[in-house]
């Protein structure tokens, strides 16, 4: 009996090092990601905020968010530009105009989008772009720990603050916002997520500001839905539409997930289960379980993508894992709403454990026709020799009512908490699974990654990756995919739908390849991708058919479009 007993222990020790056989092959990933930040002239360094001294003991934790990046062609020159937010009073946000030669210049000050972090106003936590007034220019909403600010794009160079006029002068401690057209009236509506409730973090009257549970907290701020009335005005319809979750939402994403033509809202909540709000034909949203209630974790971000080439948008939600302490595991939820009204979580192995994972995005980095996943990691990198995990372990499993009061938390000091973690790049090997190739393709930074955005910055059919790091420099990874693979990209222009085409879904069919993408109105964590859906085709030289499902409900089919180029598709007027 002793022999199998010892063998079991030895087997456990062996399995601790990883699977005995890995089905997915990590060799020849078919792309590299080269750090081109300095070469591109991007020198943005995020600065974290400081808050009321009453919560100084937990400030590293409370102030650990705010590094955000969003992609928008704000000047309409067809080159995607980048907007980074900063989170300390006096520190400017940066708007990097893409010069089209591989370099960027910061024009935030001239555009009026730099000096947005001021006492009384709050500090930026992110931004989301969309043509909210249908004038053909991308406007931007900046969300803060503080007041929302909506900036109208005046002429492709300058922005004017139209927050008051729009009816959006609201204090929201927000880490995310998305544009969507939930009622399909052709105007972009706005969903803003809230984290802390509506307190002024610089002038606290109480230290009872934290979550009241580590798994079931619902004492966060209230998410808000604003209906676009036209004429640059918005109306708060949160209660009427039933979407005012108070679950400490960190991220939201939207798409027509069940194929009924109306966009749902998917939420990643910290200290609680994910939530899916089903759109009842634009009249109301209903919170549906969809299998999401089965696991209460710490949702940090949500991104939507066709993970298995089924022509469906699946969801990837990041969570927290730390060796020895906790394995919450990321969720890769296969969309089976049409069959069973549920998502099925298939995350396992490497793709489930990325450390303390933050922003993530799907993108076909090698243009082989299957989506890779880029995941940013790491929470607080301070003293390498001190970890807060031991302190966290004492309170995380306890009755957290004690810890709603920030003053009862063990002081952070200069401790790290899941610091110095590397990003993961998961190569999609289809049925063989996902394998981390970060080191192999050149991603080895140890920054505290937060927002991840993807964009074809050079209009060459390659998906570059931009990462905003907390309290640290941003990174631009230039993608170099296998040059023998083909690709196709689409610039969509809405007519009946919103001009940005946000929410439009594109499906390509090329031989045995079927893949779907949604035009991004904000996803991941505090990020927004290039609005131009990109598809890798592998060795396939042509696409049989492209189907665009516009937010208006219009369906447009294009046969045999040219490949290896960016194709503009305008929505039929009638």
């Amino acid at each position, binding site marked *: 009996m002793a022999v199998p007993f010892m063998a079991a222990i030895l087997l456990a020790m062996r399995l601790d090092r990883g699977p005995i056989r890995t089905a997915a092959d990590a060799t020849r990933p078919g792309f590299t990601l080269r750090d081109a930040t300095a070469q591109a002239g991007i020198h943005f360094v995020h600065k974290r905020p400081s808050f009321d001294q009453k919560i100084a003991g937990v400030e590293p934790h409370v102030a650990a968010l705010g590094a955000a990046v969003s992609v928008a062609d704000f000047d309409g020159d067809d080159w995607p530009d980048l907007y980074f937010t900063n989170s300390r009073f006096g520190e400017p946000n940066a708007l990097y105009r893409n010069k089209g030669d591989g370099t960027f210049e910061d024009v935030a000050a001239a555009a009026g989008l730099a000096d947005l972090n001021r006492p009384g106003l709050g500090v930026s936590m992110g931004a989301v772009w969309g043509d909210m007034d249908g004038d053909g220019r991308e406007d931007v909403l900046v969300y803060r720990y503080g007041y929302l600010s909506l900036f109208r794009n005046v002429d492709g160079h300058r922005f004017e603050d139209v927050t008051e006029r729009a009816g959006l002068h609201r204090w929201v401690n927000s880490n995310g916002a998305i544009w969507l057209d939930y009622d399909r009236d052709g105007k972009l509506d706005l969903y803003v997520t809230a984290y802390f409730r509506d307190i002024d973090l610089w002038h606290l009257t109480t230290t009872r500001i934290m979550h009241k549970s580590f798994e079931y907290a619902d004492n966060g701020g209230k998410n808000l839905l604003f209906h676009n009335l036209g004429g640059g005005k918005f109306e708060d319809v949160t209660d009427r539409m039933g979407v005012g979750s108070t679950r400490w939402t960190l991220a939201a994403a939207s798409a027509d997930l069940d194929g009924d033509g109306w966009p749902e809202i998917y939420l990643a909540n910290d200290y609680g289960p994910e939530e899916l709000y089903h759109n009842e034909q634009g009249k109301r949203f209903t919170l549906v379980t969809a299998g999401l209630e089965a696991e*209460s974790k710490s949702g940090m971000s949500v991104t939507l993508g066709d993970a298995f080439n089924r022509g469906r948008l699946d969801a990837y939600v990041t969570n927290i894992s730390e*060796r*020895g302490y906790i*394995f919450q595991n990321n969720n890769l939820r296969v969309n089976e709403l049409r069959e069973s009204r549920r998502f099925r979580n298939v995350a*396992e192995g490497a793709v489930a454990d990325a450390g303390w994972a933050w922003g993530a995005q799907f993108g076909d980095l090698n243009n082989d026709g299957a989506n890779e996943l880029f995941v940013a990691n790491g929470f607080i990198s301070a003293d390498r020799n001190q970890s807060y995990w*031991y302190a966290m372990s004492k309170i*995380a*499993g*306890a009755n957290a009512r004690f810890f709603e009061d920030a003053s009862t938390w063990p002081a952070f000091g200069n401790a790290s908490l899941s610091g110095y973690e590397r990003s993961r790049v998961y190569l999609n090997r289809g049925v063989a699974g996902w394998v981390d190739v970060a080191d192999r393709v050149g991603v080895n930074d140890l920054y505290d990654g937060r927002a991840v955005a993807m964009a074809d910055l050079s209009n060459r059919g390659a998906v570059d990756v931009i990462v905003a790091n907390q309290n640290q420099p941003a990174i631009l990874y230039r993608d170099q995919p296998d040059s023998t693979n083909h690709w196709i990209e689409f610039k969509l222009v809405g007519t009946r739908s919103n001009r940005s085409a946000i929410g439009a879904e594109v499906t390509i069919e090329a031989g045995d390849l079927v893949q779907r993408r949604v035009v991004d109105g904000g996803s991941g964590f505090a990020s927004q991708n290039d609005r131009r859906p990109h598809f890798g085709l592998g060795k396939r030289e042509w696409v049989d058919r492209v189907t665009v499902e516009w937010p208006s409900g219009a369906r447009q089919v294009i046969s045999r479009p040219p490949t290896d180029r960016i194709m503009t598709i305008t929505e039929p007027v009638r």
Partner: protein
Amino acid sequence: MSDATPATGLATASPNPVSRLWQRTSRIDPRYLIAGLVTLVLVVAQLRYHMFGGYTRLVLALGVCMATEAALSWFDRGRVVNLQSAYISGISLTLLTKPQGGALWPFVIGGFLAISSKYVLRYREQHLWNPTNFAISALLLAAPSKVAVLSHQFGNDLVTNLVIWTFGLIIAKRVGVLHITLTYLASFLVLNGLRALALGQPLFPELAPVTGPMYQLFVFFMITDPRTVVKGRRKQMIVAALIALTETVFRLLSDRGVPMPIAFSADPALLSLAIVGPIAKWLDLRRTPARAGTPS
């Protein structure tokens, strides 16, 4: 064994419903009470908080525990023993084991280790480790990159906690191990309170762990395991206090950042029992005249 008693007979014997219930439970085999309590915890944990993360885990852990028990007892003694103990181990493993990703092997290996430890790690025909405690401690030490222990809460609603604590304490009293539970709890609170004072740390975080479900399973099912506790009420209380003391030492070492396997920082209670419990049992058995004993 039947635990059913005609209600009319009980009503005649005692008019007080609480007394009636108490009398009724006194006729139930303690193992059924413990199995009932662990089942209650499992049901509450799953129905209210979806805590164990998939029925496959439950089926695997229960299946492996019970199959291993059946096979080894037949091999060892020529008959299959009562599987109650395996049932409790399977459920405890399901609740406590939190693997990386969707890994299922920790439930298989853990179940096998839990039960086989009773047949391999024996002294004078008695096993020394609480089976679940051994299995989880072994997994934490052997595979810290793949296995962690339950860190969830039973929510924060006091009702759920109250139900579990109330039933737990009543059953501990009925099984005759309440003094062990209370000694451990008192020792934990005093020692860690003193530790917080000595280190100048806030008190709440140091006392907070004991409010979590991992500790509820620990105080009701592990340190009170009738098969692995020492004989004698006083000695049982001393051992319970020693377990709390050892745990406090591990916490002090963690406070000081002393390098040691991560399990000693993350799960000091489980590791303390895994060290103190068998030593105490071994010493107890050494001082007791040898007699035939059987694991079950």
